[in-house]
């Protein structure tokens, strides 16, 4: 199975070499996706997330079924493609994962700070990932449409743009170093230009995703975390302002892009 997926990933990589005509690259991607439509282990995380959403847990012995993800308490469908957004109760712009932690804390009595400090893939962070996968799946096929009506949403967009261009560390990298231009790649990995809508199911529209190479389910927080690691930056806090701002920047830029999350990646 792994060999098939790695083979398919290789096929996609070669298909996307610039020497190919635009049309055949698009065909190759569509073919690759068809091959992987079934058997995305993200489904397992989606199922787990759905169970967690409905399960009474924590000191308050409550479910998450009245959690407000931005479209009203308990409304899951359509919420993913409007995040990050401003929330009146917390008075800040939140992304999916930090909003889930807010609900786990206020509705279930779990400790938000503890969850934020827990490494990815462990303890409650595993549950946050599964819940994020479930919520994202409920918006599959919908198009990104983040709100920018609130001043704080617009401010976070502007902060996000500056975060995106912030150069630092021993390599002088910013997000823009890799994701600031069309048609670039690292080795054979295509890099979407995240200053604009990179297309359906690409970039912001592809995460959470199951990564075959390490058998892990990654939400956007972990995706950003690993980006910063490779940028040679210090460690971004879970749900920190920089990560939410840059997610807002990418999400607003992706307006109109179709979400394929949770997807499958090499």
């Amino acid at each position, binding site marked *: 199975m*792994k060999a098939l997926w790695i083979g398919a990933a290789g096929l996609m990589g070669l298909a996307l070499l610039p020497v190919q005509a635009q049309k055949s690259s698009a065909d190759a991607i569509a073919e690759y996706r068809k091959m992987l439509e*079934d058997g*995305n282990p993200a489904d397992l995380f989606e199922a787990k997330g759905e169970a967690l959403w409905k399960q009474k847990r924590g000191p308050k012995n409550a479910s998450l079924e009245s959690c407000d993800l931005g479209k009203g308490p308990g409304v899951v469908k359509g919420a993913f493609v409007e995040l990050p957004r401003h929330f009146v109760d917390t008075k800040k712009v939140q992304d999916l994962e930090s909003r889930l932690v807010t609900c786990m804390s206020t509705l279930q009595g779990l400790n938000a700070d503890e969850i934020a400090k827990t490494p990815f893939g462990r303890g409650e962070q595993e549950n946050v990932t599964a819940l994020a996968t479930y919520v994202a799946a409920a918006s599959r096929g919908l198009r990104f449409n983040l709100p920018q009506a609130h001043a704080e949403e617009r401010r976070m967009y502007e902060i996000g743009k500056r975060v995106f261009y912030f150069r630092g560390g021993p390599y002088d990298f910013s997000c823009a170093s890799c994701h600031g231009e069309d048609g670039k790649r690292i080795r054979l990995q295509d890099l979407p230009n995240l200053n604009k809508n990179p297309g359906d199911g690409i970039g912001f529209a592809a995460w959470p995703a199951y990564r075959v190479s390490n058998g892990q389910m990654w939400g956007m927080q972990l995706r950003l975390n690993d980006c910063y690691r490779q940028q040679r930056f210090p460690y971004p806090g879970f749900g920190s302002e920089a990560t939410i701002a840059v997610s807002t920047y990418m999400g607003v830029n992706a307006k109109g892009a179709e979400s394929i999350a949770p997807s499958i990646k090499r």
Partner: protein
Amino acid sequence: MAADPMRIRAQAQGDKAVVRVLMSHEMETGQRKDSAGKTIPAWFIQEVTAAHNGKTVLNAEWGPAVSKNPFLQFTIKGAKAGDKITVNWVDNRGEKRSDEATVT
């Protein structure tokens, strides 16, 4: 059963049914070493069986070559909507999982 449930979908297609199964399992090969240099013990599904309305239709012996969270797809002749499909697995630790689905 301690392991996470399988996801089974069974679709009737004419005189057959296509069954797709996603299993949640680490499928540890026993070749990897942890950061301390110790070998991570092998832990993988060894036997898979599938039944259609109680009758065994598939028997598989797996090994460490099958990857984590395995995906299995097979076709059953003569299965129709409403029929019951059961999938079982047993791993090298003796842990088991059994899940069922109805053909739609």
